[in-house]
């Protein structure tokens, strides 16, 4: 944390200056259903785990909802999390990641915007992150997740999702800071994988989109 303050960590810095590809638009049936369900609730608390979106912050706070935001993919790329085990093999500092991220001891959320983060998270983080998110959600809370299908191809870039309407998203690919390149898809989940990943949740509802994306609305 102190290192971030001193500006030596390349990871959790602003991405001003990153080259950005143009935005594209997509419709999301799962988002529409999430919005419909949230409209019935009051005092909503939302956790957005995608790249910071001004549009999402404006939208939710404008509706009087409480919003927390943190960019899990940016945080997962911190080079200081790459450590070696006692045998000298490369490993990931999971303990430190979970200490610095998703740390909301006194909060629980009605909805989590997980977007397509599972497709880009380093492998050692996927299950622990889902477990931590589960522990942060209220019973009956909703998690919105997207998963690429294999037809999407490995070059599908990690993107920032801006909510622009009830079922409308602007999708903005974002580059890794400094590298000039884009995040690569690390894996493709099938339906069985997804069901296993979220087996501690009470229900999953799949929506197949036209753009090589599978949308899932998951209930805690």
């Amino acid at each position, binding site marked *: *944390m102190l290192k*971030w*303050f001193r500006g030596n960590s390349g990871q*959790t810095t*602003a991405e001003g200056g990153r080259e950005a590809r143009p935005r594209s638009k997509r419709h999301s049936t799962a988002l529409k259903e999430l919005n419909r369900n949230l409209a019935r609730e009051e005092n909503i608390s939302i956790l957005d785990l995608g790249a*910071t*979106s001004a549009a999402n912050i*404006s939208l939710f706070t404008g509706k009087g909802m409480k919003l927390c935001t943190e960019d899990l993919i940016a945080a997962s790329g911190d080079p200081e999390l790459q450590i070696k085990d006692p045998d000298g093999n490369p490993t990931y500092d999971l303990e430190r990641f979970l200490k610095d991220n998703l740390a909301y001891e006194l909060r629980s959320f009605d909805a989590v915007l997980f977007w397509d983060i599972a497709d880009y998270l380093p492998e050692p983080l996927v299950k622990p992150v889902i477990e931590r998110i589960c522990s942060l959600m209220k019973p009956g809370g909703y998690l919105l997740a997207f998963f690429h299908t294999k037809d999407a191809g490995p070059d599908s870039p990690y993107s920032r999702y801006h909510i622009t309407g009830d079922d409308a998203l602007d999708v903005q690919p974002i580059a890794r800071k400094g590298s000039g390149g884009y995040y690569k898809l690390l894996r493709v989940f099938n339906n069985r994988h997804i069901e296993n990943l979220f087996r501690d949740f009470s229900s999953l509802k799949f929506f197949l989109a036209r753009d090589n994306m599978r949308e899932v609305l998951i209930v805690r």
Partner: protein
Amino acid sequence: METPKIVDRRSDMASIGKSVVIKGELSGSEDLYLDGEVEGSIVLNGNSLTVGPNGRVRAHIKAREVVVHGKVDGNILNAERVELRRSAAVLGDITSQRIMIEDGAYLKGSVDVQRDAKSASAGASGNSSQTSTAAK
């Protein structure tokens, strides 16, 4: 580092340059432009704070208006208006009557837009940009 364009109001405000490091409580009753480092707390009740592109703040901030171009690690509390410019990186919670965040800004924390009748009439005056949020 590319220096973002900043509306130059610095002649009207106190200024702390980029080579200055302050540890402790920073308080005052005038607007402040901060391009250096502060670790502790910042209290500018009724006045504005601008954290410049080289600014590094590790402190909770209480000010009427907060504009961030640099880095803040701490909460921004009870502001009337908060602006996070595209080069901003904020680790902390924000409570404000209005908030404006440019694309590219990084925020890790909660955002709580407080409703206030006075700000509602100001927000309706149309001076907020597309990405701003005004309490209504």
